[in-house]
């Protein structure tokens, strides 16, 4: 079933991809133009995904229950880290992300917080102050 869903998703993407290629015009002195190569790769992609829908492989084991919740929480943390890195600044956002992920991976509260409280400023000092990569210490939401 997983293979079928993946096949359908890739089929849909390649059909949209092929449809969009129709809108790209060719220029002078370029016999192929910008639309040909997308067609060359889009058509076999669609064909193979149809094959995958008709003859799917074995289903993988997806996580369920608590592990699935952990996965979703981890993904939410990763997205939150990406969105909050600038508004909060590198040190606070890294503290939250490292602490949160450590807890999700089964650390106890105090060691997780201590680890996060070490890693976040240590990375900032190492990379910003010592090696000169500019990182925002604190973001506009805090200062």
């Amino acid at each position: 079933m997983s293979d079928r869903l993946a096949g359908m998703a890739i089929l849909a993407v390649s059909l949209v991809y092929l449809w969009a290629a129709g809108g790209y015009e060719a220029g002078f002195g370029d016999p192929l133009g910008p639309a040909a190569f997308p067609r060359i790769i889009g058509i076999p992609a669609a064909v193979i995904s149809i094959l995958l829908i008709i003859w799917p492989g074995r289903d993988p084991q997806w996580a369920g229950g608590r592990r699935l919740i952990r996965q979703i929480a981890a993904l939410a943390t990763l997205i939150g880290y990406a969105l909050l890195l600038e508004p909060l600044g590198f040190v606070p956002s890294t503290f939250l992300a490292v602490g949160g992920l450590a807890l999700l991976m089964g650390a106890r509260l105090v060691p997780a917080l201590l680890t996060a409280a070490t890693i976040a400023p240590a990375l900032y000092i190492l990379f910003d102050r010592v090696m000169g990569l500019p990182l925002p210490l604190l973001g506009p939401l805090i200062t």
Partner: protein
Amino acid sequence: METLSFLANGFTVAAQPINLALILVGCFVGTLIGSLPGLGPVNGVAILIPLTFAFGFDATSSMILLSAVYYGCMYGGRISSIMLNIPGDEPAIMTTLDGYPMAKSGRAADALAISGVASFIGATLATIGLTLFAPLLAKAAIYFGPADYFALYVMAFATIGGIAGIDPRKTLLAAFVGLMIGTVGLDPATGVARYTFGSFNLYDGFDTIVALVGLFAVSEILMFMELKIKTAAIIPLGRTLPRLSTIKEGLGASFRGSGIGFIAGILPGAGASLGAVMAYTFEKQLNDKDGTFGNGDPRGVAAPEAGNNAASGGALIPMLTLGVPGSGTTAVMLAMLISLNVQPGPLLFEKQPELVWGLVASLYLANIALLILNIPLIGIFTRLLRLPSWALMPFVVAISYLGVYAISHSPFDLMVMVGFGVLGFVFRKLDISLVPVVLGLLLGMDMENNLRRALSISGGDPSILIESPISIGLYIVTGAFLVFSIYLSTRSHKRRDV
């Protein structure tokens, strides 16, 4: 003789203080990444690339650093295989078979020393092979025209899944998905914006480096969330400097394993894992008369380690000479070179000999540094194995974010990275290899350019694609390979049904 003088020049490049420092740092970091379960050469190198960019190292120094990391990972992978029975990375799986039984019977230090020497032999022989064969292949590759390059890329995609590939359809599909993602952005020939959906962020396409960190590092975090959390017991290590007689036990196997591994490494789509498997299987068939293999035979430790180290050296050859990587890690290294505007391939040897030969010379030096790190100083790494994953993995996340953010200062790129992380996770779950995706992203534009160049030479006549003997030969090899791998996969399906 010409090669020797080039190599001598290479050593003057490698001996610059900055490069020497990078070799040492790379060897240490590489061994560490390799030894920690969950991090292997591909994600290790992928995480470090943004940092090399952010520091603004030139192409030669970046390449030296990453290659030292790459070699280091191959050495380090064996440490947790032997001490924990958990392979530190994929190529080290075979080392658990005899390494862990050896460690359990009280010979952990011996196993580490034998495999350390085997790694050294494998990697050094492969580096010598690289020195001798790469220039020859580069000379041959000068005769490639645009149509031949197109054929070469077709072959790279068709073969990257390897003979052992799970489902050839999925490998091909992965390649096409990578190629489709690679066409996003302004078309270089006409300036038409393709698949940008009006977003200015996408005019330059997806940054390959950002995509790589997502595909390999971020997806690893999501994979990790599924695992059972467990802490393994570490076997105590005795004396770390072994007796010479101990080393001798693995010497023959090391040389045999190196030869097999080196060939496996040069072949497209094979890489270090296959090198280790082939070396171990061969050694077992040759020498397993008393059933000692699998119960802690030193030769069973030496052969796969020599095999995977030799294969990783061999895999550098097609990457440097043809610009077509044979394994995941070399694909990632190719991504970095392309992002630094260095086009690997035959011309690289003529235009930037200091890069090629500086790199080769550094590999010799890295091997010596790694031998020292991995035998007398091995205790550092076995102690670091106690580091809990809940501290390590979040640290990796922070480094990845820091690196990607430092290149572009763009939160959009961070979101792209997470997006590729999810894609990588789903693909890995579905047994769809990520290497063809990377290859598609990387080579797509070049493949398209060569196709268009060939067809503008011929005025639009597609028969130019199959005119030269080189391209015909490449298509025949590709076809034979595809038929063979489809045949193998249908046969294994039948066997599974029975």
